[in-house]
């Protein structure tokens, strides 16, 4: 794993200095993605999923910044690259798909021009060839009659079609890694199924690695190979998706699964995790989950944090009964 990883994130920390102290939206996160692998990232709102993705692609909004650890792409560090060089890595080696397709598209330019521009920026090809590639990219993501739609503007497409255009844009320079942050959250299930199936096909056929950020456990189960569960900026658990979802080792993962309606069928009541995730200015000592955890003991409330054992970062992993 170590030397074949496409993306390696090691002990990544992100900090936001504020008047009331330093916030840590990403706190000591380590993960890897192999070529052709989809890593799902789940967790409640505010857990730090987007911040992690943004840190990997070097798109943190100041004052947020990487304060520790490193990010390696194909074995080379990218977290300390100068801004201009990182901009080239983004696009060429890392593609991005966000929840709102309009954030990635220029409303004033036909989609074809945007594709051609991106392709020519990253690949040494002629205008003609770039255009042919643009048509092929649109075709590949399932835009019907791609050659005649290439001069259309973003607003002339439906939401699902726009998201396909964004995927075409993210993939046209043939990146090794795609960061997809809630790419289907705003879409209907039928369109979501189309987009997820497309992402899976691209990974399989091209060996692209994907970080798929979502809060939908069903999407995670169907799409990802491995899953990382985040809580209060930290990794609660990471491992093969089937293992983590069916035999969770971390009480938080077990709690989340118990709260998910589809996972607890036939149960009259859903499992409730008491309380809410703490704000970043009030992350408790020791294990961040301890105030909500059914199995917390004195050890959990004190520093140091729980070590990683197996897939989970927990003093008492496994056999969680809820």
């Amino acid at each position, binding site marked *: 794993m170590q030397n074949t990883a496409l993306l390696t994130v090691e002990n990544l920390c992100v900090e936001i200095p504020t008047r009331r102290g330093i916030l840590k939206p990403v706190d000591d996160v380590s993960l890897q993605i192999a070529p052709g692998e989809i890593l799902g990232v789940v967790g409640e709102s505010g857990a730090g999923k987007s911040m992690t993705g943004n840190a990997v692609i070097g798109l943190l909004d100041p004052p947020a910044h990487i304060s520790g650890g490193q990010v390696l792409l194909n074995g080379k560090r990218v977290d300390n690259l100068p801004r201009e060089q990182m901009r080239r890595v983004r696009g060429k080696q890392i593609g991005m798909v966000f929840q709102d397709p309009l954030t990635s598209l220029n409303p004033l330019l036909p989609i074809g021009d945007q594709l051609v521009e991106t392709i020519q920026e990253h690949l040494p090809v002629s205008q003609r060839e770039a255009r042919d590639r643009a048509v092929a990219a649109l075709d590949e993501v399932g835009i019907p009659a791609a050659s005649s739609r290439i001069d259309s503007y973003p607003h002339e497409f439906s939401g699902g079609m726009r998201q396909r255009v964004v995927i075409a844009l993210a993939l046209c320079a043939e990146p090794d890694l795609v960061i997809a942050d809630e790419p289907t959250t705003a879409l*209907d299930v039928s369109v*979501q199924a189309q987009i997820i199936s497309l992402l*899976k096909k691209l990974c399989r056929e091209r060996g692209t690695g994907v970080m798929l950020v979502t809060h939908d456990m069903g999407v995670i189960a169907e799409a990802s190979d491995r899953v990382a569960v985040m809580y209060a900026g930290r990794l609660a658990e990471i491992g093969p998706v089937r293992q983590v979802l069916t035999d969770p080792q971390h009480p938080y993962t077990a709690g989340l699964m118990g709260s998910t*309606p589809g996972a607890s069928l036939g149960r009259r009541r859903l499992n409730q995790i008491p309380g809410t995730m703490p704000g970043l200015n009030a992350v408790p000592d020791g294990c961040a989950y301890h105030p909500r955890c059914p199995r917390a003991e004195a050890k959990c409330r004190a520093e140091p944090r729980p070590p990683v054992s197996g897939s989970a970062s927990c003093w008492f992993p496994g056999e969680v009964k809820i």
Partner: protein
Amino acid sequence: MSALVKIAGLTRIFDVSKPWLNRLLERRPKAFLKAVSDVDLQIEERTVYALVGESGSGKSTIGKVVVGLLAPSEGSVEIEGVDLHRETDAAKVDHVRSDIQMIFQSPFASLNPRWKVRDIIAEPVAARGGDTKGLSERLLEQVGLAAGDADKFPHEFSGGQRQRICIARALASNPKLIVCDEPTSALDVSVQAQVLNLMSDLQEDLGLTYLFITHDLTVVQHMADTVGVLYLGRLVEEAPRDALFERARHPYTQMLFEAAPRIDAFGREVDPPKGEIPDPINPPSGCAFHPRCPLAIERCTRERPEMRQLGPARVACHMAEP
């Protein structure tokens, strides 16, 4: 059991024409959108009726007609035998209105930020000149918050807590029917679990009836007694929950169920649905689903299928079998 809500031949049309000057210059006729088209359904007292369907299928429009926020263009809605839009006896209308409440998706938008929680909750009762002494405090406790929260403002609460406040307000006038429009769509699964459990408990304790609008099939499966499936403003299938999840009979319901991500379907390869939802201003002729339907025959392009009773279900499809 008796029907609390009787919807018959309900149609709601919106005028989506451009301003008259544009129409004149561009020589365009007026444009109309049939958001709800000839829907018949009944909701039994003390049950949960879930309306599902993709974006734009007309779920919210039906909900708004039921609570009286929108008038029907054709057809009727009777609640406790009273048609709110035709009844001339003001006392009867007033009585029925106080029996109906609505909860919306966004717990942020639907609470006045400048009002104290006490006044927000008591408002529906105060507006009718009722006694509000201690009411908010009692309701806050009923929805799992503290009586002392009555003196706070909405911004001091989390999303899930705000939705509880909305529920408390909906309960204030002692309603029989609550129309819930995507009440948990903006919430994390852990918070959703708390709110869904609360809603189930209240339904049981107070004998409430819910019209539950959602696009999340796992939530439907958890909450509903009866499920109605909408496509382009038309009710295409209705069945008791278990019968529907055991076997959907309408090709659209089948497509929707197949496309929905499943938490136990690790690595499932779905054959994603073909095509897109058509333009609602110019819906397809005959059965609106025919351009995407794998079973469609020539008749489907001409003739709109009637609702037929097939076993436990009512289905609007020429080809569906019992």
